[in-house]
């Protein structure tokens, strides 16, 4: 039996603000089209609403406390030297595993064990713009450099304050898609996929998008898409009545940005711009996903490729008075999850399921779909049955 390829699309900080999830403002035709061909999960939840714990949990199939990763400063491999990650496990079943962009938390990417090869690095990549990490506009690069230098001078290079000393919260330069990192990484992933298509081995290709994580930076055309869109802000400006005081925070992540006030209210006009910037980067990511899926189709691989699209957690866009993630509330823990498999029944394609699932369930699900055993360390539950019986 020919093993299916796996395209594993990770998106950073994307709440279920997509057309397919009922958003009336988000412009996401490519993810909506994927949902129309697959199964959309209405009730998918992350295990912790912050990057490293959520991703370490996804990739090891274990809950954050099981692997002792509950913040962004612990490397799961240091603490769990023998744990087998999803791509590592697939390698033993004959898969070629490779990633472009952000799958694991940066710096904790398990290069030696999880990945069987590097992403494409052939001549075409050299024609791409030099990899840009961050702002395209010189003035914003300068603001970032200056603020960062001040922080380092004051606190030292290794101080646990890497969230401080930031540039502006958003930038939309008149530049091509690959001037920003997600566009570049998509091209890298496409070239890698074409290369792997020539091999006999099935592949696990991780394509990880850095947006819509702050800073919200993308080509101007995506900002312009929301020119005439009436963006409504949330009407829920306070935390829950009688809620836990320790359950809320002061929007630290956003307030670290150069153009955001350190304290006090975010003005309505600025809030609308922030929401527009968030959505614009969602549309930017959506466009890159469209390119990836088109390339998969053109390469003739779509019919034998499982596509799993997910986000590491949600995001408060002013909801409960918070800008950011890092809470236990619905808005931070509910995530988009869309799955398309080659042999999904036509009756299931384009449908939605209300079944509860957790991101930790993705690991065993992919194992089952690939016909691979599930390691004992995995704590999730395969939701493969839902792919044929979503009700």
């Amino acid at each position, binding site marked *: 039996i020919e093993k299916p390829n796996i395209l594993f699309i990770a998106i950073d900080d994307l709440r279920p603000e997509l057309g397919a999830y009922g958003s009336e403002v988000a412009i996401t035709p490519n993810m909506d089209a994927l949902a129309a061909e697959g199964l959309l999960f209405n009730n998918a939840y992350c295990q912790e609403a912050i990057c490293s714990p959520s991703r370490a949990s996804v990739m090891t199939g274990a809950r954050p406390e099981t692997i002792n990763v509950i913040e*962004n400063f612990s490397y799961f491999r240091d603490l769990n030297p023998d744990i087998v990650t999803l791509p590592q496990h697939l390698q033993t079943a004959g898969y070629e595993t490779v990633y472009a962009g952000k799958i694991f938390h940066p710096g904790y990417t398990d290069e030696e064990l999880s990945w069987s090869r590097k992403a494409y690095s052939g001549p075409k990549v050299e024609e791409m713009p030099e990899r840009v990490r961050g702002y395209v506009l010189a003035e914003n690069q300068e603001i970032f450099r200056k603020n960062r230098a001040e922080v380092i001078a004051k606190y030292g290079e290794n101080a*646990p304050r890497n*969230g*401080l000393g930031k540039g502006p919260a958003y930038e939309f330069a008149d530049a091509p898609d690959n001037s920003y990192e997600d566009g570049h990484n998509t091209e890298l992933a496409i070239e890698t996929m074409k290369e792997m298509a020539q091999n006999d081995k099935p592949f696990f290709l991780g394509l990880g998008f850095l947006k819509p994580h702050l800073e919200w930076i993308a080509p101007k055309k995506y900002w312009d898409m929301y020119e005439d869109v009436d963006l409504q802000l949330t009407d829920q400006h306070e935390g829950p009545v009688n809620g*836990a005081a*320790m359950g809320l925070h002061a929007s630290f992540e956003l307030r670290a940005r150069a153009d955001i006030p350190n304290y006090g209210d975010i003005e309505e006009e600025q809030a609308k711009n922030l929401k527009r910037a968030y959505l614009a980067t969602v549309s930017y990511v959506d466009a890159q996903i469209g390119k990836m899926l088109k390339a998969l189709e053109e390469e003739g691989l779509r019919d034998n490729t499982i596509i799993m699209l997910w986000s590491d957690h949600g995001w408060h866009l002013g909801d409960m008075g918070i800008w950011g993630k890092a809470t236990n*509330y619905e808005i931070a823990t509910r995530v988009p999850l869309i799955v398309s498999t080659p042999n999904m029944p036509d009756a299931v394609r384009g449908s939605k399921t209300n079944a509860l699932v957790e991101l930790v369930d993705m690991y065993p699900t992919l194992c089952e779909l690939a016909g691979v055993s599930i390691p004992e360390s995995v704590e999730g539950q395969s939701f493969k049955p839902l792919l044929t019986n979503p009700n």
Partner: protein
Amino acid sequence: MEWKTAAFTQFPSPALREWAANPLSKGMRETSFGPLLEEVEDRIKKQQGDKWNRDLFENRLMGYSMRTSQYRFTVWKDYTDTKAKPIFFELYDHQSDPKETVNIANDNPNLVAQLL
């Protein structure tokens, strides 16, 4: 078909773990985040009264949250001590309150006990 009846998530207090591992960096209070951190701390102190303890609230407190088809139930407790009693409950009814605007834990002790 039987299916799982709850999804679990967790988050440590205070919600600053993006930039600070345990223990919370002492220097954090001297940054521009300092006043914000104190603002959050004051809110917690006000709510917790005698139960306030800086070490617990900065380094050992975890919110464990469970989402069922109808409810979100969150328990805040010392995660370093499995026998420690919860110090705060949150309960939201998604049938009547999908935006989680009112914590109804105090009005529903039996349901809290059942979910716990």
